[in-house]
């Protein structure tokens, strides 16, 4: 089934006939979907239904994994630019930077807290030390981590708690000033308190970015989502009406029926 926005309100992410396979084993088959600009879109589904693969198809990260073959079309609205993700002329590194991703487990680089943010800024944007420092502080403030780490920016990032590491990863992505944020179960590996902090951040960030979040948490979707899609076995994607995902009971019974 297609879920398409109208011509007056172009989608931030427009997916058409997307199929992805790994070592000739199909994971996604002929999916079409529009993610509207702005707000927080949740993508729900059972484990193994292809949610992460769909997310990684958007920033072409599947290509880093062996045996991946992708066909179909994905268009992204990045600022004023409309970009065909899989066009041969598309600069894949710029695409990945502007469609920033946060992973399920906090994936800090084995560097210091400050270097985790400044290295990508220096390498991918060619920024000088002063600009890197300013953006580092800004991004850490944005995720409410600055006060916790400002006195130990030189300490290894691995010394932070899981929740702090995940917020650091979010800050690292935000420092690159993306247009779209792709989040792959960002609270799955965190305890309740850390997960709640990330949720509060998502509620703030959805006012400024287009967020696409893969999640297993129905309560998160119920509390935060502006749109909810459910993916079935990589083949079928259903949009849930707002009346359904705003009502927890209705959401649960809808998922029981759909998944």
């Amino acid at each position, binding site marked *: 089934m297609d879920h398409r926005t109208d011509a007056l309100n172009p989608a931030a992410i427009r997916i058409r006939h997307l199929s992805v396979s790994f070592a000739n084993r199909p994971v996604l088959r002929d999916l079409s979907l529009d993610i509207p600009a702005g707000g927080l879109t949740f993508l729900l589904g059972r484990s193994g239904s292809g949610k992460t693969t769909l997310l990684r198809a958007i920033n072409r990260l599947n290509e880093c994994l062996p045996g991946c073959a992708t066909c179909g079309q994905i268009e992204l609205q990045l600022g004023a630019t409309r970009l065909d993700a899989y066009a041969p002329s598309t600069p894949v590194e710029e695409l990945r930077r502007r469609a920033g991703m946060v*992973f399920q487990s906090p994936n800090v680089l084995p560097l210091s807290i400050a270097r985790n943010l400044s290295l990508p800024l220096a390498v991918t944007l060619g920024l000088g030390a002063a600009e890197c420092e300013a953006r580092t502080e800004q991004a850490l403030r944005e995720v409410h981590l600055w006060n916790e780490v400002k006195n130990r920016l030189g300490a290894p990032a691995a010394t932070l708690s899981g929740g702090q590491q995940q917020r650091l990863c979010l800050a690292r992505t935000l420092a*690159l000033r993306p247009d779209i944020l792709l989040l792959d179960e960002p609270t799955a590996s965190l305890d309740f308190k850390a997960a709640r902090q990330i949720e509060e951040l998502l509620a703030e960030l959805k006012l400024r970015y287009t967020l696409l979040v893969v999640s297993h948490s129905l309560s998160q979707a119920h509390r935060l989502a502006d749109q909810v899609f459910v993916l079935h076995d990589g083949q079928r994607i259903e949009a849930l009406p707002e009346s359904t995902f705003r009502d927890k009971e209705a959401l649960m019974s809808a998922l029981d029926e759909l998944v």
Partner: protein
Amino acid sequence: MPRGNITPSLLLFATLVSALSVLAIFGFLLWFAAPVFTGETLSSLLSWQWRPQQGEFGILPMLAGSLCLAGSAMLLAYPLGLGLCCFMHGLGPTWAARPLLGIVRGMTSVPTVVYGLVSAFLLIPLIRAGFSGSGFSWLAAGLTLAMLILPTIVLILDSQFRTIHAQTQLTAAALGFTPAQQVLRLTLPLSTRGLLVAAALGFGRAIGDTLIPLMLAGNAPLLPHSPLDPLRTLTSHIALVVATDSQSAAYGSLFACGVILFMVSLLVNLALRRLRHE
């Protein structure tokens, strides 16, 4: 007896046998070298003259030869190995990495004597024609030894690069790093330990090799003044004297050579242990 109980005992036994063997070798060397390290013999040993007929057993030219040859082979092989690893892990096309690594792995299975033989028939005539002299020189041995130690350096670095790459690849790619930026700005700086281990093991392999200097370096017990001069290493010196003599005082000086080589190897291993702990 349950298998789980006997395995640790066997492993402990194997460890003890290995450790005692190394200690026994060192003890044996020290025992036989002890008379050489005393009195006048020591001053004779630490001289630049190897004239056994005149009672001069100076091994300093051989020590210098070993260090010169191993150092120059490392100067060639280390940057080459590092470049090759960076090429395989991001600077070069993805399709080239597997065949290149296959070639390097294949190089480890070539017997040392084959390297020596091929160089004697191909490289030595080239040096002889291009420069002067017999061609058997520091240059010929250095070039060939560099080829010999290249796989050691590449395989250690490759293993380290793979570990770091596996940890950081998806993250770096998601942040917009190109493959070249990943290897140069992330993998390489994070591989300090692997870089040091490769240098230490590569040098150990170079200083310990016997056949290449024996076949190609010319074996003159003199301090070389240019890459075209012949030289003699401690290892080829031992091989040459043992092959012709087993009774004289010159024979006794070989134990001193053995102790020095053993000490170099020991220092390399201790340095490695220190690096692992850091």
